[in-house]
């Protein structure tokens, strides 16, 4: 089981799911139509490190964060 967190303005509570790669996470998140637009322009972190590869293998207890467009300052 992994945990998916939605940061900043997405405003959605964390969800838990079974997934062996980020590809699985993508498929499951896209079942929620309200997330599709966010996924288009959100970056992804695994256990607080930014990632850029869908094939990364996940293990039990991993934490995936969805980071929508930013604007500091």
């Amino acid at each position: 089981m992994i945990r998916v967190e939605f940061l900043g303005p997405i405003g959605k509570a964390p969800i838990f799911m079974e997934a062996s790669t980020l590809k699985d996470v993508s498929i499951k998140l896209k079942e929620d139509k309200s997330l599709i637009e966010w996924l288009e322009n959100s970056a992804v972190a695994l256990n607080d490190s930014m990632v850029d590869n869908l094939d990364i293998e996940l293990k039990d207890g991993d934490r995936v964060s969805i980071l929508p467009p930013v604007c500091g300052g």
Partner: protein
Amino acid sequence: MELSQGELDVKEIFGRWLDEEATSNYGAYIPFIGTIRAEDNIEALSFDIYEPILKEWFNQWQERAKERGAVVKMAHAIGDVPIHSSSYVSAVFSPKRRVALELIDEFVEDFKANAPIWKYDVIDGERIYAKDRSTAMNGAGLLK
């Protein structure tokens, strides 16, 4: 890196940073102050920050600065910050001016593009995500 609730005390921060590096033998100290402008009827801006990734982002910048003999510092506000006050300050110290001038440009621009901070306009007490002014981070769209 310093995060605090509400508007920043700019004079205190820059004075303290100056004291911290007073005998470090840096020839240049370039401060940057981000001030909230009155526009579009906003009464304040408001910020969410994801601290673990912001720390990692900032640590990478400290390493890059160190390779050039320089130091970067920053402070950012969390929550509501009223117009005409400051939500973000940063600074570069370096032995000579050229490195500091270049670094403050690169550091502030990358901050705008990749620091995990979300901005909201506050209008009539309501918080509205500043979607049009926000930038997708490097690697965005991975799960689309």
